[in-house]
């Protein structure tokens, strides 16, 4: 029997110890009318060899198209050591470190992770992860409402150039708690947030302002001005960032004169494969003054009975298993294994390595943009400084172009036209350090054919 070790003899001895005539008798408290008669919808078992063949067939069917799509999930090189360690059983098959003495490996790693994320974002404290970047934004908005006691409006300003799915998720998750999201238009010339749109809210009770750096179009926002506006108008500032970009860009803790209050994002660029969208992990860092309003697990360093240093879950009284209906969030299980990957990834690359990856991604995107915009019918939408994504405008329907590119083995980017109809036939493209000059040439050749 797959995964069940019992011999017939074991079963006999165990039933005798229980004093039950059969295994079926163990279910005697369940009313007979409720019992399953047949599981016809479940196929017969496959052996490991058979299921391996099946999965390989499924995988091969999708193949490995050349990817130029980002939009919140980015293909980066992952050092071989990362997943070799992550999939060690001691990390892979452990659970939440409730028994601290038997979980020092996971706990110390999470403490190291918290240290790295706090430093990278320029903040004081980090939690041990949330589900993903989008749900982390939702949690940040709820946290801002708790942390900003003077504000009664629960009103959050979000830029239109923020990843639209993040806003959808934030709305869905906060729906029962009456948060109000006001969407600020972006400047159609620059593709970034303009202070004028914010000024319409001057003097009003605003709980928090959200800004994404780089924004969904890959462009750099004037975060100093937005941070200062939030501070001057007594609103908290929530930063949504790509952690890789922080190897190059000013960390949110240094934005404007006061810095951000809450920083969130998706940690996927650090050692986590694209893998159809998950599992990734959301990160969250903040100021020490807000730490008790932060959701999720937090690890602290302390000492044991002999005075030796050790690590443990702390500030648990914020959490659902103690605080129940008054908890900061209902989150329990988070994304520990992905944080393990990210921590190893950051340790291997260091700041110098992350800088190189970020720089190479930016360089390759520039090369891609230069090559594609030489094609007739393709032009660059916004020319301001960017990280590793860019918006192109085509002279025809984007979905048709993407479908034609897919037939040529190329995943060509993200169709912006549904969520941003005002941009026309807009396509968001991305090239990371994993896209070579040959890859870019292949995309360019395919695009030239398609745009004929």
């Amino acid at each position, binding site marked *: 029997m797959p995964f069940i070790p019992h011999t017939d003899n074991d079963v006999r001895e165990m039933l005798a110890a229980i004093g039950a005539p059969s295994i079926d008798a163990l279910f005697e408290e369940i009313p007979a009318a409720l019992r399953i008669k047949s599981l016809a919808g479940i196929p017969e078992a496959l052996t490991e060899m058979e299921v391996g063949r099946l999965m390989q067939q499924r995988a091969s069917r999708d193949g490995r198209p050349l990817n130029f799509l980002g939009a919140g999930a980015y293909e980066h090189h992952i050092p071989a050591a990362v997943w070799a360690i992550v999939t060690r059983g001691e990390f892979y098959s452990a659970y939440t470190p409730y028994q601290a003495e038997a979980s020092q490996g996971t706990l110390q790693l999470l403490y190291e992770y918290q240290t790295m994320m706090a430093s990278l974002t320029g903040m004081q404290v980090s939690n041990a992860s949330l589900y993903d970047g989008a749900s982390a934004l939702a949690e940040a908005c709820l946290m801002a409402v708790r942390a900003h*006691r003077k504000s009664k409006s629960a009103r959050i300003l979000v830029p239109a150039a923020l990843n639209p799915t993040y806003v959808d998720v934030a709305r869905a998750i906060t729906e029962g708690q009456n948060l109000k999201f006001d969407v600020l238009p972006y400047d159609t010339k620059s593709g970034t947030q303009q202070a004028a749109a914010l000024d319409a809210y001057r003097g009003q009770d605003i709980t928090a302002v959200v800004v994404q750096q780089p924004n969904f179009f890959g462009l750099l926002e004037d975060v100093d001005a937005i941070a200062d506006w939030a501070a001057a108008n007594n609103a908290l500032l929530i930063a949504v960032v790509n952690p890789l970009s922080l190897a190059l860009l000013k960390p949110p803790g240094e934005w404007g004169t006061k810095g951000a209050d809450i920083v969130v994002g998706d940690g996927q660029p650090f050692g986590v494969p694209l893998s159809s969208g998950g599992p990734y992990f959301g990160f969250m860092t903040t100021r020490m003054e807000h730490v*008790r309003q932060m959701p999720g697990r937090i690890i602290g360093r302390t000492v044991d009975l002999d005075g030796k240093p050790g690590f443990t879950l702390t500030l*648990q*009284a*914020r959490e659902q298993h*103690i*605080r129940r209906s*008054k908890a900061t969030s209902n989150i329990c299980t988070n994304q520990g294994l992905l944080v393990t990957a990210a921590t190893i990834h950051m340790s291997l690359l260091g700041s110098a390595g992350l800088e190189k990856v970020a720089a190479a991604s930016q360089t390759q995107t520039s090369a891609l943009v230069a090559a594609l915009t030489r094609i007739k019918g393709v032009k660059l939408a916004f020319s301001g400084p960017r990280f590793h994504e860019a918006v192109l405008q085509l002279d025809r329907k984007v979905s048709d172009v993407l479908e034609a590119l897919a037939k040529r083995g190329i995943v060509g980017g993200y169709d912006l036209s549904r969520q941003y109809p005002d941009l026309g036939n807009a396509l968001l493209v991305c090239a990371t350090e994993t896209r070579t000059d040959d890859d870019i040439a292949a995309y360019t050749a395919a695009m030239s054919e398609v745009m004929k």
Partner: protein
Amino acid sequence: MSSIPSNLKYLDSHEWARVESDGTVTIGISDHAQGALGDLVFVEVPEVGRALTKGGAAAVVESVKAASDVYSPLSGEVIANNSNALSATPELVNSDPYGQGWLFKVKPSNSSELGSLLDAKAYEKVVEEAGH
């Protein structure tokens, strides 16, 4: 046996209230409550100026394994809180629950509410029953 001073009034949820000479009321949690919670690591007290209603959640006391709301025994406005002392040394609530470990003071808006509170004897019964 925990201490239950006879000059105080109590709620069955383990808060105490002391009427001061100027008519204001000081509020804290009982010796029994601090013992049941264990070492306190954090205390959140209401801001000065906040209007409280009798029986409403006013403060939070946290130990490592538990967090508990503190209910206001009276309606009224918060005129002082002990956050200066308690933010750095929450353990004062453990060591001196009726003295330096006080939580907040209110100016009662309806002094007739005082009559509904338990005296020391009645509260002692509550504690005894909780122990069974």
